[in-house]
Structure formats: structure tokens, C-alpha cells
């Protein structure tokens, strides 16, 4: 029997959507990392209550743009580090612990059959998905501008303030806040973060 050549789709197309892991204490993993319970259990403050709008009213420094209060800056950094650690722990970003898989530790279930073309979870953007037992949702429709066209070069031309390092324009500050709030809302809705 020949192997199917199309992407495999992990669901039977139930109208109410699919979720992986029926509770936050269930374990999930991607790309070969050992499955974990929801990595971060502490909820983070929302950077913005809606995507596309920053709650931060950038300061009016003469040489750089930053944040008006320490709370706003702390919220932003906490949100970014939480998303970063979440994606690393789940295996969606590099930098977590990639355990060598052997027959002896492969006690968890593997949810794809190893098609060389890959596996899809949800066939279209309006499909409903959820993780760790949250109610499945469709993908957020908000499109964000790229902060950087590559991951290693910053679009930001860093300001040269004498006492603090910040951003050169208010546009850069707004872009960072929009991306963080969108990513944060995405991961929260999917149940990957709380």
C-alpha cells in the first residue's frame, strides 16, 4: 500500500473544533521535545486589551522613544519572556530541551504518522483549535507588520539617550507593542498561555 502524499490532517473535522490536551495539566510537545504540561501557569497582564492598539503612550524624549511608566515596560518584557519560554518549552522555538527520543522514553503518544510532507492541525484559518482544554477558536484575523525581515537584524535604530536605551521613533514602539499584544492574545486564546 502506498503512503498518502498529501498533508495529513489531525482531526475528523468536528464542527465544534479540535483541542489537544483536555486540561492544562495534560502534556503536549512539538518537534520532538518531551511533552510538558502548560509551561507557564501564571497569567500575564495584557499589553493591550485589543490587538492593533498599544496601551502605551510613548514618552516624548527628545532623542529616543520609550515608555511613560516603568509598569508598561515591565509588562512588555514579562509578556515577551513568557511567550519566549512557552514556545521554547513546547518545542515550537529552538532553545528548549530537545530530548533524544529512544524506544524506552517514547511512552507518550505521537499524533502524526510521519508524512514527509508534514502534518496540519486545522485545515483552514477558520478551523477551531484549542490546547490544554480551552474552547477551540479560529485564528485571529489581525495581520501584524514584521518587526524585522529576518530574526537576527533589528528594524529598530536604537536611540542614543544618555541615561536609557530606547527606540528612535514612536512608530517602532507602537509596532513592538502591537506585535507583542497580538502574539500574547493568540497564545492565550489557544490555551498555550494563560
Amino acid at each position: 500500500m502506498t503512503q498518502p502524499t498529501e498533508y495529513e490532517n489531525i482531526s475528523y473535522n468536528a464542527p465544534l473544533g479540535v483541542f489537544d490536551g483536555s486540561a492544562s495539566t495534560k502534556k503536549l510537545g512539538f518537534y520532538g521535545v518531551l511533552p510538558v504540561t502548560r509551561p507557564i501557569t501564571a497569567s500575564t497582564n495584557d499589553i493591550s486589551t485589543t490587538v492593533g492598539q498599544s496601551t502605551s503612550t510613548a514618552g516624548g524624549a527628545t532623542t529616543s522613544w520609550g515608555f511613560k511608566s516603568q509598569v508598561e515596560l515591565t509588562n512588555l518584557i514579562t509578556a515577551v519572556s513568557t511567550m519566549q519560554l512557552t514556545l521554547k518549552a513546547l518545542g515550537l522555538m529552538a532553545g528548549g530541551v530537545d530530548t533524544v527520543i529512544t524506544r524506552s522514553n517514547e511512552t507518550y503518544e505521537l499524533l502524526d504518522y510521519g508524512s514527509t510532507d508534514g502534518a496540519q492541525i486545522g485545515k483552514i484559518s477558520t478551523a477551531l483549535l484549542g490546547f490544554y482544554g480551552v474552547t477551540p477558536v479560529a485564528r485571529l484575523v489581525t495581520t501584524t507588520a514584521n518587526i524585522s525581515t529576518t530574526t537576527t537584524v533589528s528594524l529598530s535604530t536604537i536611540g542614543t539617550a544618555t541615561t536609557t536605551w530606547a527606540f528612535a521613533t514612536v512608530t517602532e514602539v507602537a509596532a513592538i507593542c502591537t506585535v507583542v499584544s497580538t502574539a500574547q492574545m493568540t497564545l492565550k486564546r489557544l490555551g498555550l498561555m494563560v
Partner: protein
Amino acid sequence: MAQPLENETAGYNSSDGQMFGNASTKKIAFYGATPVTRPITASTNNVSTATTVSVSTAGVGLAAWGFASQVEITNLVTGVSTVQKTLKDLGLMA
């Protein structure tokens, strides 16, 4: 045969968990995007070593709060763009 009305759960409830793709070179996608291998293979510096404590000692600018060093702001921008690219490539963000 009637279609089940509840959410479907992928997995048979193994206590050791569920995994998608058994290596970083396997391809995965969400919401109909074309499956990709792990989008970013280089590890990024942690913006913070803990999620509730910031490594940034915010400066005491008169008009704005910023960062105490260029390294901190570079780590933040790299972290955000990496998260953004990862979520877009996987189809989790538009």
C-alpha cells in the same frame, strides 16, 4: 451516523502526553498553512531568566522609561521578531 457534537480531542489520553512531530526537522502547521520544519533553529537569548522578573533595570529617564543597556533592547527586539516569525510560519498568526 450522526456526527459527534463535542470538541474532538486528539490523543487517547496517554499520561505521558502527546507529541506532534518527533524531531525538529519534521513539518507541522496550523490553520491550513503549509507545514514547515521548526521555523527558527537558532536559540535566542532569554529576555528574562524568569517570566515574572525582568532582567531589565529600567533607566530613570525624565520623560520616558527605556532600557539600561543596548544589549537588553537588542534581546527584546530579537525575541519579539523571533516569536512573531515563528507564529506566522506555523500559521498561528496572520
